[in-house]
């Protein structure tokens, strides 16, 4: 792609997790800015539903849907090769909260939770990073979680997956620091989505999916490494990380 092409053809965004509430908001935000959007999801009907919504609301027609199962790691290479063009930005929002109690007793469930939150996203973004590095530029946004900052009894299977993902993104960022490929880790905190529908969320610590999308889109002009969507979370997690393990293990947070 020549320099002039980059100004005349729209930039391209790939959303991995195109049926999630955050993925939908991210896609809508970029579509409103004139980007070409690809929604990747296992549930392509659900992703088409979001694509129709974004098309109708934004009047933009540059949005398509591709099938991707984050657990089918062998499909990643053909998936990326099958895209019409290498995206300028990839935002990975796939995740699975799972059921902590069930995960303690059911190894298959625990495996699915860990693979969905860590193995799949990490391996996919590794391949994206290689392609971005070969081209010379690109933005990778991994949506991780504050749950990965410290393991807690109530959700440590999910948290461990997200911790692995955060560490992976950190290493990737370190490796590519001297290139024009940027890697951002976004930790949304509580977000009002279908994942959290049954939880009692703490209002001041809870963001709307649109706020997460705005923070992600802001990375296009102002890159950052680790983003807490609501700044209060940076302080909250600083305190939680600072508690000595001997005390932390007795708390129920």
């Amino acid at each position: 792609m020549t320099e002039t092409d980059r100004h005349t053809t729209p930039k391209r965004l790939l959303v991995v997790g195109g049926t999630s509430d955050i993925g939908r908001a991210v896609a809508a935000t970029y579509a409103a800015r004139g980007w070409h959007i690809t929604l990747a999801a296992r549930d392509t009907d659900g992703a088409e539903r979001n694509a129709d919504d974004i098309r109708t609301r934004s009047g933009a027609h540059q949005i398509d849907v591709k099938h991707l199962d984050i657990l089918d790691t062998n499909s990643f290479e053909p998936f990326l090769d099958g895209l019409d063009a290498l995206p300028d930005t990839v935002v990975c929002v796939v995740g699975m909260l799972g059921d902590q109690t069930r995960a303690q007793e059911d190894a298959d469930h625990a495996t699915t939770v860990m693979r969905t939150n860590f193995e799949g996203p990490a391996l996919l973004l590794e391949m994206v990073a290689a392609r971005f590095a070969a081209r010379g530029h690109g933005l990778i946004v991994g949506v991780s979680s504050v749950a990965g900052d410290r393991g807690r009894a109530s959700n440590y299977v999910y948290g461990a997956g997200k911790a692995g993902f955060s560490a992976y993104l950190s290493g990737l960022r370190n490796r590519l620091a001297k290139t024009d490929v940027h890697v951002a880790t976004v930790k949304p905190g509580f977000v009002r989505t279908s994942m959290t529908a049954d939880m009692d969320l703490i209002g001041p610590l809870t963001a709307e999916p649109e706020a997460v999308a705005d923070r992600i889109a802001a990375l296009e002009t102002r890159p950052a490494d680790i983003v807490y969507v609501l700044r209060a979370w940076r302080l909250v997690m600083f305190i939680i990380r600072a508690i000595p393990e001997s005390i932390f293990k007795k708390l129920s947070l």
Partner: protein
Amino acid sequence: MKDLSGWGRYPRLSGPLGKARDMGPAATATATLPGVIARGLGRSYGDAAIGRDNTIDATGLNRMQSFDPNTGILAVEAGVPLADIIDTFLPQGYFPCAVPGTRFVTVGGMIASDVHGKNQHIHGTFGDHVAWLMLAMPDGRVMRCSPHENAELFKATIGGMGLTGTILSAGFRLKQVETGWIRQTTHVAANLGEAVRLLSQTANATYTVAWIDVLARGASLGRSLILEGEHATADDLPWGDVRFPPSTNGRLAVPMDMPSWLLNGMTVRAFNELYYRNGARKAGQTTTVPWDSYFFPLDGIAHWNRIYGRRGFVQHQCVIPEAKAEGVVSDILERISSHGAGSFLAVIKRLAPGSGLMSFPMEGLTLALDIPFNEKLKPLLAEIDALVVAAGGRLYLAKDATQSPATFAAGYPNLDRFKALRDEIGATGRMASKLSERLGL
């Protein structure tokens, strides 16, 4: 269990509320849950959107599907809010053909209540502009209904209060407008007779409605401001005005329940006096006002229902056939006025017949008023309802919280057809709200 009430916050009930995040689950819930009704943004005033046993929160059906600029038909899932539609399409020069007094309602709710606006006398209700709808039925089928397909079911669903099934999605027409501004002309009526006459004289205007001072008595009974409106053209706008102003209201809010004594005869009388005098100063003048303050003035004050305090309020809206309208409205106003605790929000408007089987509008005059609720109110409302029935009128189900089954049956001559259709599709006893239970449906 969730606390559930309508916008009037009377009655306050509770029950299980499950959120449907897609049309499939909404259809499944409709087919499997007993005594179920769909709920949108909860802006019906009484008990219409509270299930007898179960309530489906349909606000997750919030995807738009398509828009065809050639036909003006917008297809959306039923939980899409009217506010989203206006925010998206007004900047492109489109506006819904009918809007109610708040934009925080869903498309499904607008169809189920067959809502009307200030242009109903000319352009009909929201339901008159629905091209088709998808209805999830209690037997598990999903039916496409339109004036040409399953027409009887379509007619019963427009204004059917969700009692024929759950509306999943719909296509409806938007009209083209040149600007987002309304040219509003204010006329002053010194009494009810003059108000009715002015409403007739302004019947050619696209939008017309009268705000009425409920507490005025004697010779001033029914004194009103008649507000006439037309969509402003681009040429009407002063140079430099934005053609499609974004919504400006929404910055004010009532932060908590106001004490019940706040709204007494004196404070409401003072408010109405000020409002009337302020309007009277503009008599005969035409001003250009933005769409949101014209159509949705109260949307500018979030949670305005809290002003009536914890006990809530009822909105009573009736329509009286033309011939007896003036006399009966006058009688109602006199009773409300002597009761004392009248309302900020009393409106009269001329209506044309509606097209749904259970649509509220009929040829005549509609009167809508808010009254703070207390138990002593019930006998007064029963008296008023008797006047409405005697005159051959009816009450608006989307506002209703108190009418009797007899009042309801007297007002809706298509009720037997509606009941028969509900039997036929297996909806009787299955699709059920607190309202349908109360009214013996």
